[in-house]
């Protein structure tokens, strides 16, 4: 069980953001504790991606605050988010297909020699280390990532997020494009990261995988938060009802 007695790793307090007249996120508060996986669920357009982009630095909220380890954080762009050890694994993976795993892992944060030149050997050595931990079967260090399978590409994207001491990880539909074996691999990696005390926001459409991978699920509808529930205390039908009807289950409503 996750210990929720201390200070939350992330607290999104009363976040609102509107585009023109549309309230994409309407006074939503969600928190995340170390070693916890919180699933974000909802229809397309429910506002879950928009909410999480306030944390990854892609958007700036109109009102409300982000607290990291109990302290107020200012996040204006993706680089600010990286400074708070927030890493994002995008649904598209955001990999440069023509470069190899090491180049992608260090993209924008290359290791350089004293002369200012890129230190390829050092980066490959580091990549071998981190991949050895995440995906020991990974061998294709010198091939462009376009030559990798979906699961291997996913593990490169995950490696990039965890290598730089991520404390907070945002995963946007990490298993959407994967087969069963690769989905299993992602599940194992999430378990491994949990053990290291990393907090994870998992955006997903699949209720079953949320129930399997997450500790809590936050359900959104029309920009509002329907509720945050312990996945062990509800059934998949309960969660579906929250997503579709926007109703919190009877036995938890009290």
């Amino acid at each position, binding site marked *: 069980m996750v210990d929720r007695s201390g200070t939350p790793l992330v607290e999104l307090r009363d976040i609102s953001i509107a585009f023109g007249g549309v309230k994409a996120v309407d006074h939503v508060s969600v928190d995340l504790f170390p070693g916890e996986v919180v699933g974000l669920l909802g229809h397309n357009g429910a506002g879950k991606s928009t909410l999480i982009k306030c944390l990854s630095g892609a958007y700036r909220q109109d009102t409300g605050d982000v607290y990291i380890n109990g302290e107020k954080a200012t996040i204006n762009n*993706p*680089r600010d988010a*990286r400074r708070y050890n927030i890493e*994002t694994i*995008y649904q*598209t*993976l*955001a*990999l*440069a*297909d*023509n*470069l190899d795993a090491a*180049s*992608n892992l260090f*993209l*924008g*944060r*290359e290791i*350089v020699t004293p002369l*200012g*030149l*890129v230190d*390829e*050997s*050092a980066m*490959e*050595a580091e990549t071998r280390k981190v991949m050895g931990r995440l995906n020991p*079967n990974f*061998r*294709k260090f010198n091939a*462009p990532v*376009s*030559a*990798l*399978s979906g699961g*291997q590409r996913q593990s490169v994207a995950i490696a990039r997020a965890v290598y730089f001491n991520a404390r907070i990880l945002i995963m946007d539909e990490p298993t959407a494009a994967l087969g069963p074996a690769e989905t299993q691999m992602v599940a194992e990696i999430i378990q491994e990261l949990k053990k290291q005390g990393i907090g994870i926001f998992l955006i997903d459409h699949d209720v079953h995988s949320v129930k399997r991978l997450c500790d809590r699920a936050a359900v959104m509808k029309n920009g509002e938060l329907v509720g945050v529930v312990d996945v062990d205390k509800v059934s998949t039908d309960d969660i579906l009802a929250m997503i579709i009807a926007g109703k919190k289950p009877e036995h938890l409503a009290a």
Partner: protein
Amino acid sequence: MADTTGNSSATRTRKGLLDTLEVDTRLLGMIGAFVVLCLIFNFVTDARFLTPRNVFNLSIQTVSVALMATGMVFIIVTRHIDLSVGSLLATCSAVMAMTQTAILPDILGGLNHPMTAPLALVVGLVVGTAIGAFNGWLVGYLTIPAFIVTLGGLLVWRNVAWYLTNGQTIGPLDENFQLLGGINGTLGETASWVVGGIAVIAALLALASARRSKRAHDFPVKPLWAELVLGLVIAAAILGFVAVLNAYDVPQNRLERMFEARGEVMPEGYTEGYGIPYSVLLLILVAIVMTVVARKTRLGRYIFATGGNPDAAELSGINTRLLTVKVFAIMGFLCALSAAVASARLTFHSNDIGTLDELRVIAAAVIGGTALAGGIGTIYGAILGALIMQSLQSGMAMVGVDAPFQNIVVGGVLVLAVLIDILYRKRTGAK
């Protein structure tokens, strides 16, 4: 996905000779095509094609297009195009020509002042870089497609050059400036051998340091004999090239005039080879710098990453707009350098200098394996592409093929080269 986990040392023995040497098969294919081309022309022209004299001419003719082609690689890799390079070359050439014939003689007092050539060159390089950066700003920050920006530039800069010179031929250029042209500026035999020797040592050291760095991180290295074979081939190629250039003798009457100018009498039977032209040396230097930029600097990384996936580059915190400005500024700088070489070779600036060069430059880059879809391309490929184009052109001229047929063949070869490239990529499974 193919099974890659079984790639243990036991299966390594199946590797072929080329795999062991770890040479780029595509580079090998291009060199092969080039060699075949040379041998065919040599056969058809009764061994006139591969004489030292023709190799020398071929080298100095290739330099101008090859210089720009190295810059075009970066442009195309970042998914842009530059159609204005020929016109930009003309503008830079006009600026340098006017600077050294109309402006500097008044200031410095007289023609052929030692400072004329360097100053003119600097002015040209600054103008070229600035125009390139301006193009990059239009593309990167104002988001006008590069095709349109440079199509406009094709007209604009061609006619700016015309305006600057009133359409006149400007010449002769400064004597020191002409040293960049080729035949008027060469290293001579001894210095050429020294440069060749240094190049061989540098190449061997580079091989050794790459091996040491791999060893330090416990990565697999190729067998020592493979490394030695590679080193020998490289050394032989460098020294062979120097030997050929040195074998092209300066004509007797020209030597006599040189001795006369120094107030001496030429000894009986005296000969002297030209050696490496300064312009070729310049090209080699640019090739090395551009290759280092492409492979070993963050700038190069970001250029290739942006070409592979612009969104990913953006999300990784790369300023892709500024990157576009830098890439076009490099192109502008190289256009100016190329303008200096081209006008120095002619010994004057003419109104039509660099006409259709944009097509030659793009063709050289594409024949050299730069993918128009972005993300893929090499500097050495582009130079080899330029060399193949130039060989084809001057080989056919030598054989006596009619001018229209020459262009028809060159155009056909461009399309064919891209087709072969597509088939090669399909075969090897790369994108």
